[in-house]
């Protein structure tokens, strides 16, 4: 458990954050730039001290200003992957990797040198100097260096932000592999919702130095404040389910979600895998009668829970699809024409192809 309750006054900015997140797992600190993500991360690492407050990890106080506790950063055993990698320019990659390992010999090893090199694909880079690496390679080395310092917690401060899209794709799978193979708790700072979708188990929403809300990613996806941060096009309920059938030939998998089954466009996920899927609200269609002769693959019997006007002039309808909640954005005209009310029985229609690129494996099947 990572428990934080801190206050920090900076020139023109005030961080007043309280959160409790489960460990192990990937805790995403999500918010716009300037929302206090980095300050909070620095406080967890011990590089910055809060004015008042406490930080504790798995019951052990790292910072407790009132009780005069402040474990120095160098003794916290908290690995930190910075946005700009911060590799030591005068040391080779291998010496960078050994830097933290050498200084933490007494801590329990979570992962060995050879395993880190294999996991992050560092073998061809070992003899190089940091200036001979690409941005993505630098981030992988930085990740390896932090892992080898035997951390109890790993902080990742927008590790992909300085990379272009293709470089991101080069690093992201490694992060997913870390989450699935090692049980190190991670705090992942990001302002890209897709990264949160792919990595996070717990989402903390930060805005103007305060925690707006926190919780599991699927619950948080329904949170109105999240919607205003990520913008109208990315709003959509996150549902999680298990793959029950795959068809290699069509690239379509059956996903058991609540009491229903969704056909989704998903390759490389074996039967039994846990999958997280975001159904973008703008792609979800509602029908008040059973439909026929449509190409839509998914028609789930559902119940309208609530309807709200969203801040973009449309209506956002929450429907219960047999357990999970799904969001559908419809125009005000459609809302009036269908005369939708809470409690109405409707069919929720989702095109299987619209899920392509929005479904991610959470844990490989057994």
């Amino acid at each position, binding site marked *: 458990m990572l428990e934080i309750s801190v206050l920090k006054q900076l020139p023109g900015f005030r961080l007043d954050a309280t959160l409790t997140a489960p460990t192990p797992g990937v805790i995403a600190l999500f918010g716009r730039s300037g929302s206090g993500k980095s300050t909070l991360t620095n406080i967890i*690492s011990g*590089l910055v001290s809060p004015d008042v407050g406490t930080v504790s990890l798995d019951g052990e106080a790292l910072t407790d200003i009132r009780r005069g506790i402040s474990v*120095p*950063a*160098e*003794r*916290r*055993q*908290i*690995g*930190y992957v*910075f946005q*700009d990698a*911060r590799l*030591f*320019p*005068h040391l080779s990659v291998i010496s960078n990797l050994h*830097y*933290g390992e050498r*200084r*933490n010999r007494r801590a329990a090893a979570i992962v060995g040198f050879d395993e880190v090199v294999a996991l992050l694909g560092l073998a061809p880079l070992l003899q190089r*100097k*940091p*200036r001979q690496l690409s941005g993505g390679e630098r981030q992988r080395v930085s990740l390896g*260096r*932090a892992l080898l*310092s035997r951390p109890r917690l790993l902080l990742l401060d927008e590790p992909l932000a300085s990379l272009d899209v293709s470089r991101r794709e080069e690093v992201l799978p490694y992060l997913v592999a870390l989450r699935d193979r090692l049980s190190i708790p991670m705090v992942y700072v990001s302002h890209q919702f897709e990264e949160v979708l792919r990595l996070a188990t717990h989402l903390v929403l930060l805005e103007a130095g305060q925690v707006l809300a926190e919780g599991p990613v699927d619950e948080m996806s329904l949170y109105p404040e999240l919607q205003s941060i990520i913008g109208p096009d990315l709003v959509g309920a996150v549902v999680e389910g298990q793959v029950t059938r795959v068809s290699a030939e069509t690239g379509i998998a059956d996903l058991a979600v609540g009491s229903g089954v969704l056909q989704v466009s998903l390759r490389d996920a074996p039967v039994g895998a846990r999958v997280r899927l975001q159904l973008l609200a703008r792609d979800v269609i509602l029908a008040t009668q059973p439909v026929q002769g449509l190409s839509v693959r998914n028609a789930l019997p559902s119940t309208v829970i609530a309807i709200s006007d969203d801040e973009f002039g449309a209506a956002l309808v929450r429907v219960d699809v047999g357990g999970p909640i799904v969001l559908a954005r419809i125009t005000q005209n459609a809302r009036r024409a269908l005369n939708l009310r809470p409690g109405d029985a409707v069919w929720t229609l989702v095109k299987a192809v619209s899920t392509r690129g929005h479904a991610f494996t959470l844990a490989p099947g057994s």
Partner: protein
Amino acid sequence: MNGPPDSAELEALRLSLEVAVRSVGFSLPFAVLAAWVLTRVRFPGRLLLDAFVHLPLVLPPVAVGYVLLLLFGAHGPLGAWLRTRFGIQLAFTTAGAALATAVMSFPLMVRAIRLSLENVDRGLEEAARTLGAAALDRFVSITLPLILPGVLAGAVTAFAAGLGEFGAVITFASNVPGVTRTLPLALYTAMQSPGGDALALRLAMLSFALGLLGLLAAELLVRRVRRYVGG
């Protein structure tokens, strides 16, 4: 001018080199410390310390030598203490010439080191911290290697300048042949003696060559080291 340099020239050259080397060795640790304090520590009186460190740049060298004489002379407070306690005499010795040279070139060294310290990315020291390195460890393993080009540049510049220090040396350590008569002092002496013109010219040319060599070596060394540390 064609024959081998006579012993007076060799002796002056050897003394100049010895004085310059010893002065650099003496002031280097203090220069690193002073540069570090001036860039990294915020304290009242920092400006005053800064000005004090740079004082030899603007003072007449003779004045610096005179102050050293007052402090480290046989009857000066520090000189008397050093002699009774350790049996060390500085005034009128080669070590004294090195001390005077060290004081004069100190600001040059501090400036060079300070410039490179200011360019060190503090983020790298933070990264080292999160990897478990305490303050001294960080300085030795990260900061020092990164400022090495600046330290070397400062040391070589101070060395080259130290070869030619005149005013402070002659005031504090006097002009004793074989003990404190370095190149510039020998040159001055030759100019003062009748018939010393040829010797004076040779000494002047020697100084010129030495200075040029020193500066070139400094530049090449710094380039190599900079490439090595990848700064």
